[in-house]
């Protein structure tokens, strides 16, 4: 696959439109139903908390500057566990992509063209998405750049023309909602708004030209998107009232229907619908692109393009079966999606981040570590050695075997029960000698003599057996580590 590079400005725009995404359509009613007129407070808190989410993604991106999210999974967790997590992640993107096609179909069918089957909209939409994916990320970024000013203009026009209808009684009394309902609203808002930004890790470290300014762009895009959403939610409540907002499926569309300038300029909601069609296009593209590229990468294919048509067919099919009706979709989006998304887009990056930080510290030859940390490392090193050897660093094999021998020395010192086998202990001593040697030669020297002397230790069965014994313990250690972090 050839490398595609987008500019940091394009990246900001993609972040902006992606974070708006479907949230513009479904979030107002969802959070107004739980926290009533205080929904705007919940949304504002959600935007602030999203800063932490973005911080997490950026930190993970910095740890793996040349890889995208899928490759990082496989590199950090090893081939086997990496594949499992990637499949979990891709299930999320695939189903969510199908869901978005369902949303665009449901939206058009209920509000605009009631007699057209949803399949028609899904089909038309996926054709554009497939074409965009076929042309690649750069073309997509340019098209986002063209759509962005239109989006902003329409949004400003929308806000200005709806302002005369604001009734401040709708938002009073302020702060009446209970803490629990606010909490639920925040969770729902974040799960739709910022959890999907994890897909930008497919672009962020590897395919942007200036990483520093795209880092800023990530924050700016997210904050601007949050601003748009908070404005829309506030306007929905101010104009429609909390009860009306909650009972509608697509309150922002109902809001656009209220626009009436001098009883002359009316019924312009379909122009306003341009906004959410654009933002849903961006988000669906990202889901689709992530799925296609992800499948191509875990299967180690050279090109992802042949997979576009079959995946498009699957996604159209999915859009017809994901939700039998809108109630199913509401329940799913309110109750299950936040947890599902949290596991795949927050817990998984946190896990990757912990592994990446420990690995990086390791490869710098930092010795100030606890035995627990060592054990955990060793576990990963084992996985890496046994399963992958995919690492692109020239010195990986060398450093990994060094890690093993280091951990062995530690084991020999602290865990006496592992030394019942004298043979094992002997090999540990050998390792100790080697460790000293390799440490003095660090970092990153690919000395053949050195690596040769380490290689036999790696293949020694007694040694690896003792490693295996420590693995149950390392699970404990892992949880400890997580707590510390």
């Amino acid at each position, binding site marked *: 696959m050839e490398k595609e590079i987008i500019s940091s400005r394009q990246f900001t725009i993609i972040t902006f439109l992606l974070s708006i995404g479907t949230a513009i359509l479904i979030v107002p009613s969802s959070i107004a139903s739980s926290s009533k007129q205080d929904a705007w407070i919940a949304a504002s808190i959600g935007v602030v908390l999203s800063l932490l989410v973005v911080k997490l993604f950026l930190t993970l991106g910095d740890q793996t500057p040349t890889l995208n999210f899928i490759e990082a999974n496989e590199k950090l967790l090893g081939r086997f566990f990496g594949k499992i997590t990637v499949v979990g992640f891709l299930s999320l993107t695939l*189903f969510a992509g199908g869901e978005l096609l369902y949303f665009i179909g449901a939206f058009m069918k209920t509000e605009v063209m009631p007699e057209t089957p949803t399949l028609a909209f899904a089909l038309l939409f996926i054709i554009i998405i497939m074409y965009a994916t076929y042309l690649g990320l750069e073309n997509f970024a340019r098209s986002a750049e063209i759509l962005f000013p239109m989006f902003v203009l329409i949004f400003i026009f929308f806000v200005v023309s709806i302002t005369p209808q604001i009734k401040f009684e709708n938002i009073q009394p302020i702060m009446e909602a209970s803490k629990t309902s606010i909490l639920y609203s925040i969770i729902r808002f974040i799960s739709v708004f910022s959890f999907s930004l994890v897909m930008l890790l497919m672009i962020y470290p590897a395919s942007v030209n200036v990483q520093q300014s795209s880092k800023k762009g990530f924050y700016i895009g997210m904050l601007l998107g949050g601003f748009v959403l908070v404005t829309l939610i506030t306007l929905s409540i101010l104009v429609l009232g909390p009860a009306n907002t909650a009972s509608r499926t697509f309150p922002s569309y109902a809001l656009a229907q209220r626009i009436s300038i001098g009883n002359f300029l009316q019924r312009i909601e379909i122009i306003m619908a341009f906004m959410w069609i654009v933002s849903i296009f961006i988000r669906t593209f990202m889901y689709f692109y992530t799925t296609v590229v992800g499948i191509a990468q875990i*299967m180690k294919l050279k*090109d992802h393009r042949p*997979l576009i048509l*079959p*995946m498009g*067919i699957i996604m159209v099919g*999915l859009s017809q079966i994901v939700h039998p009706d809108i109630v199913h979709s509401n329940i799913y989006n309110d109750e299950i999606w936040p947890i599902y998304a949290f*596991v795949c887009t927050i817990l998984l990056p946190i896990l990757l981040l912990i592994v990446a930080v420990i690995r990086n510290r390791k490869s710098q030859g930092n010795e100030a570590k606890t035995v627990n940390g060592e054990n955990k490392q060793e576990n990963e090193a084992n996985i890496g050695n046994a399963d992958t050897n995919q690492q692109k660093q020239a010195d990986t094999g060398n450093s990994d075997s060094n890690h093993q021998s280091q951990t062995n020395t530690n084991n020999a010192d602290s865990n006496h029960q592992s030394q019942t086998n004298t043979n094992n202990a002997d090999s540990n001593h050998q390792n100790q000698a080697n460790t000293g040697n390799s440490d003095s030669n660090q970092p990153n020297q690919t000395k053949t003599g050195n690596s040769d002397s380490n290689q036999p230790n790696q293949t020694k069965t007694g040694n690896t057996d003792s490693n295996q014994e420590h693995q149950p313990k390392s699970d404990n250690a892992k949880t400890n580590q997580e707590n510390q972090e």
Partner: protein
Amino acid sequence: MVLAIAILIISIIIALLYIPKLKKQQETKTILVFSILLLIGTALNMGIALKINIPSPLDFITFIFTPIKDFIVSLTK
């Protein structure tokens, strides 16, 4: 019925367009993944066209995460 046959024909056309090209490039693995995905997609869409009741994959996800949801709800009560 007509729709299902149309979907089948479209899928066959897609396969005929892509597979010889990939064969020329000697990408056996791509052909395999491509065929599997195309097969799933065709079967799915034909099932929809024939109005067979296919369960939503999200029901499975719901089944997995419902205990966690119940736990969280019980915490906040």
